[in-house]
């Protein structure tokens, strides 16, 4: 039995009655977020028009000359395009591959630590780096790797890896795992704590070894979350931690550290080539959406219809 106030509104008349009776839901609850989203998210989408213009700040969006796809052609035929594309893809795909499993392994390892107090302490410690800011993280990396820093001292060398293009990706990815793996293990830990004791009893009775338990109980428990996490990270392939890349970028490591988002920033805000920079950004965003849809489709096919 549903109450008069809660039936599903079917006809147009019923819908109008619902809206009239519950106008507060629209005006008071939804309106602030809708207005902010319209202004700060949808208006800039309209602003993407400048990607198709020879944009001139003085003439504005409506006064600048339309050049349609010229900005895109310029980017795609530029000598920088292949390098930027590869830098972006390599940094995020390697980051995804290297970073995907450590949180899962950590969660499985943590679940076998029998002393609860010790486990809690380890968790407190390995979650902590998540709260370190991008700037401090970059600062730590720069200080540690400096020619007079502790890593060179320990190795007895005098190198400066911050100026070495060959080291950039490793620095970026390793520090990302250092900072994020613990935190990312939380949802896997939560899922493992939900494994029923009966299942473990059954394993014991059947004489399943520890490795068999992990393979037959832990991994299947974690699989749905792994799928979602994978799709979500794949959906960010082109939007990787741009703030960190920018903070770690030096003139000398730019050969590998320049990725599309940092290029968009440099072109737009440092050089002032608004239209071209917007076109590059739009190109990046479109690829990102396409990748997200593709990965989602592939995973849902492999996973019997269970996508996002």
């Amino acid at each position, binding site marked *: 039995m549903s109450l008069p106030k809660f039936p599903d509104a079917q006809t147009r008349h019923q819908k109008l009655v619902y809206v009239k009776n519950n106008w507060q839901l629209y005006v008071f609850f939804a309106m602030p*977020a809708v207005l902010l989203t319209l202004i700060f*998210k949808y208006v800039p989408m309209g602003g993407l028009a400048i990607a198709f213009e020879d944009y001139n700040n003085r003439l504005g969006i409506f006064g600048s000359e339309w050049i349609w796809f010229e900005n895109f052609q310029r980017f795609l035929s530029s000598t920088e395009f292949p390098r930027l594309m590869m830098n972006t893809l390599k940094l995020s795909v390697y980051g995804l591959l290297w970073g995907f499993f450590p949180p899962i392994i950590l969660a499985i390892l943590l679940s076998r630590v029998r002393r609860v107090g010790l486990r809690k302490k380890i968790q407190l410690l390995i979650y902590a780096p998540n709260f370190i800011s991008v700037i401090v993280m970059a600062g730590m990396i720069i200080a540690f790797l400096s020619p007079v820093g502790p890593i060179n001292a320990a190795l007895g060398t005098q190198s400066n890896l911050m100026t070495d293009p060959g080291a950039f990706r490793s620095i970026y990815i390793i520090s990302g795992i250092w900072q994020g793996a613990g935190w990312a293990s939380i949802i896997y830990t939560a899922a493992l704590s939900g494994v029923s004791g009966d299942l473990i009893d059954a394993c014991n009775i059947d004489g399943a070894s520890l490795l068999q338990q992990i393979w037959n109980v832990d991994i299947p428990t974690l699989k749905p979350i792994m799928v979602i996490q994978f799709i979500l990270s794949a959906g960010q392939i082109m939007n990787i931690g741009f703030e960190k890349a920018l903070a770690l970028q030096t003139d000398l490591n730019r050969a590998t550290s320049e990725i599309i988002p940092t290029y968009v920033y440099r072109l737009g805000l440092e050089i002032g080539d608004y239209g071209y920079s917007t076109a590059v950004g739009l190109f990046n965003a479109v690829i990102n959406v396409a990748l997200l849809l593709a990965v989602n489709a592939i995973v849902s096919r492999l996973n019997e219809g269970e996508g996002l």
Partner: protein
Amino acid sequence: METRQFYTRKDKIVLACGNVLLALFALAVLVPLVYVVLASFIDPVVLTNQGISLLPKDWTLEGYRRVFQDKMIARGFLNSFLYSSSFAAFSAVVCLLAAYPLSLPNFVGRKALNTFFLITMFFGGGLMPTYLLVSNLNLINSPLALILPGAVNVWNIILARTYYKSIPQELHEAAALDGASELQYFFRVLFPVCKPIIAVLVLYQFVGMWNSYFDAMIYLEDQSLQPLQLVIRSILVQNTPRPGMVADAQNAAMMAKIAEQLKYATIVVSSVPLLVMYPFFQKYFEKGVMLGSVKG
């Protein structure tokens, strides 16, 4: 629900290997943090020449004196605190409100509203159009440029919606029977049981704003408006300590050493507030992650 597990000898070896691996990771996390703290107390010359020293004569509070006497750092702290707390409060209110209608199964327009928000998660105008908008709204050099554009956080709306859905619908029906309007129900009945989700949203947004630098870097040109992350960026990333901090160095080489050691004190001072606060709120931060893992 602690089930006793029985381990064979082979299992015990596997388990030991696993524990060693976990211990190595925990150490890898701990060592850099401890190094930073120790280095922040070491004399600059000793630190750059021979590294960490445990001799009392090599220990000094000079690094901290240099950091604390700098007015911009104090200013940055104040600015960051003001921006982060107002952003957290504003954003949490907007998102908590927006999530409510989305949690009602028969809200007319729910699908459309959902899509309206979700699209912005995957696609946006990007850097330049957003920058031009903010600049056309005359928000350059206004803290509002940091607060307004990011206030609607779709992910947080999803978290709040998931939380509302976990609250028994009977409560809503009973309130409606008593003649309560949606507003009355939300504030009198729902809000009091929502403390955890409010904490989650406020804390997430506070930390997010406290740790960010990019928006402030492009929107706030005025030095006196800079948040802490921008102030320390010049010291940590651009290797240029603020002039007053190293004024007493006799020569360039000495200045470089002081600048190097100064970084560690700066890292400690700027990171301690969050790292000290986090254990007290750990359960809320974890709660946010769990809510997010519920599909929907």
